[in-house]
């Protein structure tokens, strides 16, 4: 679903990142993060960091619940950037922490006590 999502014209330069990084949920963003080598994450981080304030400014004109399709793509890119910045900013050597609890044993977002998000 992410392959052909539109971007606002002034952010067309970010199009190469859309398919891989404009992700719709925390679960998808985390899965992408931990399967990406840190050097590749840094490429995404740098590209996004250069435009992040501009993206924020553009998106601030829209309501969260009524986001046009191209702005929604941009917001997913920005949210993925925010959610995956920690390994770069905290100087981890990998995109996951070696002594944290294994991700494949963690259920994200829905389990039997709580309704789905």
């Amino acid at each position: 679903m992410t392959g052909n999502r539109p971007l606002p014209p002034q952010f067309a330069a970010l199009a190469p990142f859309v398919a891989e990084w404009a992700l719709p949920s925390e679960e998808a963003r985390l899965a992408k993060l931990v399967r990406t080598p840190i050097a590749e994450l840094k490429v995404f981080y740098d590209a996004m960091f250069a435009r992040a304030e501009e993206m924020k400014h553009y998106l601030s004109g829209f309501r969260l619940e009524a986001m046009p399709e191209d702005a929604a793509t941009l917001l997913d890119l920005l949210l993925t950037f925010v959610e995956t910045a920690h390994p770069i900013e905290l100087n981890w050597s990998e995109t996951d922490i070696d002594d944290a609890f294994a991700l494949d044993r963690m259920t994200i977002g829905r389990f039997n006590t709580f309704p789905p998000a």
Partner: protein
Amino acid sequence: MNEVTQTQFFGDFSRLRSRIDMLARFQPEFYAAEVERIFRRAWLPVASVTDLPRENCYVVADVPPLKASLIVARGADGKVRAFYNVCRHRGARLVKDHAGCRKALSCGFHGWTYATDGRLIGVTDKTQFPDLDPEQHGLVAVNTEVWEDFVFVNFADKPEQTLAQWLGKFADQYTGFFSDRQRIASYRIVVDANWNVAINSFSEGYHAAYVHRKTVPDYQGGKKNPQRHRAYLEITEHHGRYSAQANPNRRVTPVEAIAYGDGRPLYPSFPPFSETTLPLPPGVNASRDENWGFDVAEVFPVLIWIIGAHWHANLWFWPMGADKTDVRVEFFAYKAQTVGDALSHAYFRTRLREVFREDVGTMEQVTNALRSGAMRDIVLSRQEFLLQQHYAVADAMLGRSA
């Protein structure tokens, strides 16, 4: 040795012990006693009122130590009740999904139907049950009380204390705090760890400089409090809480600055308390420390709160056996209205998620090491008084002499 501390201590610490015998707690018979003497007698938080937004909404809450599945429902009369999730006909699981809003709950086995207040309102082929009195066959209720955003249940036939008595000093000190929030993340992990070890991972801050050196290296401490002593630590009859101090000279990373630039600052950003525009109830940052970071409270026996000005986390530690624990976590924050709020939420939930995963990473190691019998007792500092309190309360309920 003179104590050097920056902590204000409150409460009766006379029954606390700095040495805790752990090996016995991993034995199945000890666990059986914990189930009967702690979990069957304590008030247990099992659900959030947030999830019951209107009449006829329900959630299913599993309570592993009691091997119980509960339906927590808001009836057509608006009242919240909890029932065993069991059809009174043959004992089938009544509700199989985990949440919804329906006027009637029908059993998939033979079609018996119940109202959301538990009444049996429909029996299929009823004439074939000549001696059935529907009024005697409503869902089996469990003692239920609502406090703030939490639904508590008590499995005793007759609870020894009311919920207000059980909560003690906490009961009227968090008014409104947990309301008007949005759940922004939830996680579940089943760990091969003892539930005491699991909950102990979250009720002291002594570990933070070490376990969390990769995720939040400098959020506490600083020049004025290098040992990161709690600003405030209090124990009550059953529970305990403390306030952690922020490091005012913490390094803010570039993306944190972007993420919190338009929304409200969330963990690990802790502005001076006097800049917090919210009215916060007296239980939150109880000492009104200007340098406040966040609070941690243990609501014995299963719940930990981590509380900041605009956010909180609920962490449940449900024992499934002597060495298996169902850890359920949810993060709440103020409701998002703008893109800036969504960015705040995104940064917060992922930064705190990684901190949480580091804490969970210690539980199985500690359980395995202690279960080996390598050592008999653990030794606890005064900064770990909430752990001492946990065992004092547990052992009192178990009838163990100190």
